[in-house]
């Protein structure tokens, strides 16, 4: 019988924090600046410059630690990780090795079998991001942009507690949701504000010892992570079955090819010679500081779910979907605050919004329409100024460019015709033009009226209230 293998996975997740400035200097973290325009002597590693910790970075790191059941380190410091690479202007990265800010936490995930499981968090530490290397296509050189150098990151190191790609994704989704609710990061994998490195080994089912693990990098979507896990599991099992050894190394995943290759090891890169950074003084986290951060913790998903039930009286199914993404919940609450129609807002978000997001491959964070405009659209339908199919058309335009639906409806002449005389005239024409359907209706075929309503709507270019059309039709027939 073939041997049964178990996959053992741990993750190192880097999250870019949503601060306005870098971790150790007052340079902006905004995206899209011209190269090196968000730099200063500190983040370009000029001799004699001195780093000073951004308080918001510490607060976000602690907030994430509290939300993931970690112990917060009361006496912490920073260490230097030494290596030479042009994206690292100081020749060391400021990180935390000896006393990371958070330790021994965990998050609960749901397993495939429907059970619950805790994925342990070994530690969370604060560190700085590196610059960006651009390869010059024309000359034999590389160019460095230090705008990202010094952007604050937290690295969340899990325990090797996951056993499948599904568990890894459940863990990442949970982590992302917690961090987004905290407002500590937008956690976009595609844009790199959340990056996951996968540590994976295999062992025979029932074995006590872990196998040799490899680290997989360059995974920028959940799909890529799932494929990389499957690919690496198979590669390691093949090696073992052939009697070869798995080499502990860092591998780069090529998602288009669906395979990984060992990264050229930077010369002796494993020896980072960490030591305490003398430029950054120790961090003492007091009870008061912790209380303050705790008091500022936002409402998390479970609390939000309970409140929605109480306050908005919408179905559990709706609540589950809306609170599944922080941005969706924010949009919902802001729109309801304006129009006070929770169920209708929920219908728009769960129906048309989700449909268009899927069709146009738009992430929830990138939704463009404002709560104000969605509320206006709902009011337009409520007041019967437009009918629901016109509303859907208008919404599709709003989805693309957040137009003001009131103005749009006015400009495009989409308002429902409430002139009964005109409607009556059109219906009379429709009746005269479709004697067969009229006969069918009189012979008891109730459905025939649907056809006549459709013909009327068509003649009115969709700008009639279907209820009113129905009523007049029945009367005239």
């Amino acid at each position, binding site marked *: 019988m073939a041997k049964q293998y178990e996959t053992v996975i741990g993750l190192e997740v880097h999250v870019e924090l949503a601060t306005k400035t870098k971790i150790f200097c*007052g340079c902006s973290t905004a995206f899209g600046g011209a190269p*090196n325009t968000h*730099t200063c*002597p500190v983040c370009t590693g000029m001799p004699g410059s001195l780093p000073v910790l951004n308080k*918001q970075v510490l607060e976000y790191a602690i907030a994430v630690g509290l939300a993931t059941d970690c112990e917060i380190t009361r006496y912490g410091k920073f260490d230097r990780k030494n290596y030479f690479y042009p994206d690292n202007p100081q020749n060391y990265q400021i990180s935390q090795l000896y006393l990371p800010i958070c330790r021994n936490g965990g998050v609960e995930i749901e397993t495939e079998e429907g059970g619950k499981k805790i994925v342990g968090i070994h530690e969370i530490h604060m560190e700085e991001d590196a610059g960006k290397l651009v390869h010059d296509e024309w000359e034999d*050189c590389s*160019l460095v942009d230090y705008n990202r150098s010094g952007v604050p990151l937290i690295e969340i190191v899990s325990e090797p507690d996951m056993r499948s790609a599904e568990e890894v994704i459940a863990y990442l989704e949970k982590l992302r949701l917690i961090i987004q609710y905290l407002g500590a990061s937008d956690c976009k994998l595609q844009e790199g504000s959340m990056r996951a490195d996968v540590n994976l080994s295999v062992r025979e089912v029932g074995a006590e010892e872990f196998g040799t693990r490899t680290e997989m990098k360059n995974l920028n979507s959940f799909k890529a992570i799932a494929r990389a896990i499957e690919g690496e599991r198979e590669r390691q099992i093949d090696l073992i079955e052939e009697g070869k050894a798995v080499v502990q190394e860092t591998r780069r995943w090529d998602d288009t090819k669906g395979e990984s290759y060992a990264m050229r090891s930077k010369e002796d890169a494993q020896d980072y010679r960490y030591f*305490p950074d003398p430029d950054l*003084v120790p961090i003492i986290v007091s009870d008061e500081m912790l209380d303050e951060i705790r008091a500022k913790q936002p409402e998390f998903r479970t609390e939000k779910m309970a409140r929605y039930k109480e306050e908005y009286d919408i179905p559990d199914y709706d609540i589950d979907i809306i609170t599944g993404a922080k941005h969706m919940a924010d949009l919902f609450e802001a729109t309801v605050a304006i129009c006070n129609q929770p169920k209708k807002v929920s219908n728009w978000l769960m129906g048309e919004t989700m449909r268009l997001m899927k069709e146009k491959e738009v992430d929830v964070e990138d939704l463009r329409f404002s709560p104000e405009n969605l509320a206006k659209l709902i009011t337009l339908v409520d007041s019967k100024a437009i009918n629901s199919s016109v509303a859907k058309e208008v919404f599709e335009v709003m989805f693309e460019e957040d137009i003001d639906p009131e103005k749009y409806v006015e400009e495009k002449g989409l308002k429902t015709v409430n002139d009964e005389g005109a409607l009556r005239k059109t219906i009379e024409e429709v009746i005269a033009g479709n004697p067969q359907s009229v006969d069918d209706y009189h012979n008891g075929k109730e459905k025939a009226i649907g056809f006549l309503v459709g013909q009327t709507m068509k003649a009115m270019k969709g700008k009639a209230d279907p209820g009113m059309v129905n009523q007049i039709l029945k009367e005239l027939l």
Partner: protein
Amino acid sequence: MANIISDETIEYVGILAKLELSDAEKEQAKKDMGRMLDYIDKLGELDTDGVEPMSHVFPVQNVFREDMVTNSDTREQLLSNAPEQKDGMFVVPKTFD
């Protein structure tokens, strides 16, 4: 001298520090490092049971800055230190990830 630094060690330390040393310099560096380690051994003779490791000599802690942008674009000034620049960036030898 109690600590003898091997040729392999000095070679390895040289690689880590990106230093190319002549044979004469290597011999001198071996001696210097040996003496430093002897001194560390001497410190090791002290009884430090129950003494917390110290990383900073000044009694200062919790120095923070508020999250406010205080720096503006000083690219020109910074790049003026670079041996070579192009398109607003620092030119370095070709490097692959």
